[in-house]
C-alpha cells in the first residue's frame, strides 16, 4: 500500500507541494510523488527530503488539461497500488481531483486542514465560519490539502526520479496564451498579505500599501468594492466572492470587515486591523488593532519594519 501525491512542478516546487508530501508522509504509508511539470531531476529528487521515496515524472503532458492529468494520475495510482491520493488544494486540484474521484470511484475530501482523526478529516465549511468532519465511504480515498494548513517537514534525503508513461491520451484543450504577471507573489500562496479597502479613498493612495508589502515581502489584496470600482485589479479581491486566503499574517487597512470579506480571510493565523472607526466590525476578528488613520499608520509601520529588518 502507498500514498500517491500529485505535484505541479511547472514553475519549480511550491511550498504547498512540500506541504502535500509532508501530509502524505503522516498517513504512514510509502509516499510516491507523480508530477507532470517541467522541473529538472535534481529539483524533483529534493521531494525525498519531505518523505517521498520516489518521484514519477510524466513529461509528455505539457499544459493543465484536466482530462489528461486525470488519466496520468489514475494510471500512476493503479501501478503504485495507491490507497490514498493526495493533492495540494490549488487550482489544478480543483479541476483534476473531482474528475479522478469519478474515474476511480474514490471519495474526495477537498481542502483538508488536518490529518485524519479516526475515520474523518476536518475541512472548512460555510466559508471558514465552521469546520466539518468528513468521512469517506470508499476503500480508495482522495484528499486535497488546503495550503498553509501544516508546516513542511524536511527530515529525509533525496529520492530517485523515474520517467513515467501515464497514457495521457491527446489534449483536447488548446492553449493559446499564458498570462503570468512576473515579480508578483501570487495571492493564494502568500504567507504575508497587506490589504486595503475603501478607506484609502482612491487608487493614487496605494503606494503606501505597496510600499509596506514590498518591505515585508508580502502580496497585496483588497476588498471587493475597491476591485469593482477599478482601483485595483480583480485578482486582488479577497472574500467570499473573491479569493479565499490563509496567510500567516493579514494586515487590513481601511476595510470595515463585512462578513463577506471576513469569509475569505478568517483562516489567517494573525490579523492586524487599521481603522479610524473603533466600531468597525473587523476589530472583533482581529488579533491586533490600531485605531488610527491608515495614511499615517501605514507609512509608520513600514518604517518600523524597515528598522526591524535592518537590525535582525
Amino acid at each position: 500500500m502507498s500514498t500517491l501525491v500529485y505535484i505541479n512542478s511547472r514553475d519549480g516546487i511550491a511550498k504547498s507541494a512540500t506541504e502535500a508530501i509532508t501530509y502524505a508522509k503522516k498517513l504512514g504509508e510509502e509516499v510516491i510523488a507523480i508530477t507532470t511539470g517541467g522541473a529538472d531531476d535534481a529539483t524533483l529528487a529534493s521531494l525525498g527530503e519531505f518523505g517521498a521515496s520516489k518521484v514519477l515524472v510524466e513529461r509528455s503532458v505539457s499544459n493543465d488539461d484536466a482530462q489528461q492529468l486525470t488519466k496520468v494520475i489514475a494510471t500512476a495510482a493503479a501501478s503504485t497500488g495507491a490507497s490514498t491520493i493526495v493533492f495540494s488544494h490549488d487550482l489544478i486540484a480543483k479541476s483534476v481531483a473531482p474528475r479522478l474521484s469519478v474515474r476511480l470511484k474514490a471519495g474526495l475530501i477537498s481542502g483538508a486542514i488536518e490529518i485524519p482523526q479516526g475515520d474523518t478529516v476536518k475541512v472548512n465549511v460555510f466559508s471558514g465560519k465552521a469546520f466539518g468532519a468528513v468521512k469517506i465511504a470508499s476503500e480508495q480515498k482522495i484528499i486535497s490539502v488546503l495550503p498553509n494548513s501544516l508546516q513542511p517537514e524536511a527530515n529525509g534525503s533525496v529520492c530517485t526520479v523515474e520517467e513515467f508513461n501515464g497514457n495521457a491520451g491527446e489534449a483536447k484543450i488548446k492553449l493559446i496564451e499564458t498570462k503570468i504577471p512576473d515579480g508578483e507573489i501570487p495571492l493564494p500562496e502568500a504567507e504575508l498579505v497587506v490589504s486595503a479597502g475603501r478607506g484609502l479613498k482612491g487608487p493614487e493612495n496605494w503606494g503606501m500599501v505597496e510600499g509596506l508589502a514590498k518591505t515585508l515581502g508580502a502580496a497585496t489584496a483588497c476588498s471587493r468594492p475597491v476591485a469593482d470600482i477599478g482601483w485595483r485589479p480583480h485578482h486582488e479581491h479577497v472574500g467570499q466572492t473573491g479569493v479565499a486566503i490563509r496567510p500567516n499574517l493579514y494586515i487590513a487597512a481601511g476595510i470595515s470587515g463585512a462578513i463577506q470579506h471576513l469569509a475569505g480571510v478568517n483562516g489567517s493565523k494573525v490579523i492586524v486591523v487599521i481603522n479610524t472607526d473603533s466600531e468597525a466590525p473587523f476589530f472583533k476578528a482581529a488579533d491586533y488593532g490600531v485605531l488610527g488613520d491608515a495614511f499615517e499608520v501605514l507609512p509608520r509601520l513600514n518604517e518600523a519594519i524597515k528598522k526591524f529588518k535592518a537590525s535582525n
Partner: protein
Amino acid sequence: MKILVCISKSPDTTSKIAFTDGNSKFDENGVQYIVNPYDEWYALVRALELKEANGGTVSIINVGTTQDDAIIRKALAIGADDAVRIDANPTDAYYVSMQIAAYAKANSYDLVLTGKETINYNGSQVGGMISEAMDVPFLSLASKLEINGTTASLETEIVGGLQLVEVELPIVVSCAKGMAEQRIPNMRGIMAARTKPLNVVAPIEVEMLTSYESYTLPEAKSACRMIDPENMDELVELLHQEAKVI
C-alpha cells in the same frame, strides 16, 4: 445551442451559522436561502448573454427538495427558459454530480455551467465530477467565455495567473468572477417565472462516497489587542516575538 446551468441554494451570507442534533446537522432555524452567488451572478447571467447573442435555450438544473423551488423560481425570473429539479437531498457531491451528468447526457447539452463553488460547503467538486462522468473537457474557474460555432474560447485562472484556451463543445465550465455582471430580475421576469416549466424528476440510483459526520464552530477569538497608532515599533515587536509571523 443548449445550455444547462447548475444552481444550488446556499444560506444568505449574513446567516447565523449554528448546528443541531449533537452538532451533526446545520441549524436551518431562521436561515434564508439564496441562489449560490457564483451560480446566479456568473454562470446563469453568462448563459443568458450567450443565448441573447447566439440563440438557443438556457435550462436550470438543481438537485434538491421542494425547499429549493424558491431559488429555482428566482433563476427563472432572471431569465432561464425552464428548470428541472432532481428530487433528492444533495448531501454528497458525487451523488449530485452523477444525477446532473445523467440528465445532461440524456438531453445532449452543448454547455454545462456551474458556479466556482457553493459558499456553504466550498467543495469545488461538482463541475469536475460532471465532466468526468460525461467524458468531456472541464474548464475550471473561467473568468471569460465566448462561443464561436462549436468552439469555445475561455480565460481561466491558473496557479499564479491566467490562461487563454480554445476547446470544442460539449464542455463543462465552472464560472468565477469576471464572467458577467449580476442581473436583478424585473417585475415582468418575476411574473413570467411563475408559469415557466419546473419539472420534478426522480433521482437515479447512485451510492454516496462521502458524508459529513459532525460540525464544530471555531473557538471565539480572544479580544483584539489595541496598539498605540504612534507606536508601530511595539506592533512589529509583537508580530515578531508573540505572534511569530515575521
